């Protein structure tokens, strides 16, 4: 599945034993696709000497700070932006 700018997505809340680029603080959090970057080799396999294929699309995902941090004390419009690979994202209806 590929996503478009404005789509609502949830980051998969799953552990991953090994190198991956999805920080734990966004796992399980819901955000919005802000930008479709491009497709890149997958660091989860290149980290172990593989060729990283198939390519995985990378997205800039924007989250409300209040969604990410319990008790976030700042203003409601504050956002945090994280690059997340497609296979970590689930569609939100």
């Amino acid at each position: 599945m590929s996503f478009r700018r404005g789509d609502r997505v949830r980051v998969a809340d799953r552990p991953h034993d090994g190198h991956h680029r999805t920080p734990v603080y966004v796992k399980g959090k819901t955000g919005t696709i802000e930008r479709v970057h491009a497709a890149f080799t997958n660091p989860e396999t290149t980290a172990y000497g593989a060729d990283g294929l198939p390519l995985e699309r990378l997205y800039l995902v924007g989250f409300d700070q209040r969604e990410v941090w319990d008790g976030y004390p700042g203003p409601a419009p504050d956002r945090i932006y994280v690059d997340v690979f497609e296979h970590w994202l689930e569609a939100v209806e």
Partner: protein
Amino acid sequence: MEERAVHDRGGWPTDAPIDRSERELADWELLTDALVGVLGGQGVMNVDELRRGIESMPPGEYERASYYERWLYSLESVLTEKGVLERGELDRIRGE
């Protein structure tokens, strides 16, 4: 939330002050950076392997190590795993 790995620092609770001071890099730090660049350019070792090697450090050692000490740790472990270095080779050279 899952138990996080030692390198996965975002939102890690701490009361420790953040050291924002600037300093000159030592020669060994510049050389370490250059070495990683060359190894990447030559296709010997990529940045994801470098990161994976850092993330594989025992948590106590990770905490004690400086930024480029972590790079060196990873360089030695990944190059040893690839057979570019023999196990203990750097220690032997240093001892000579």
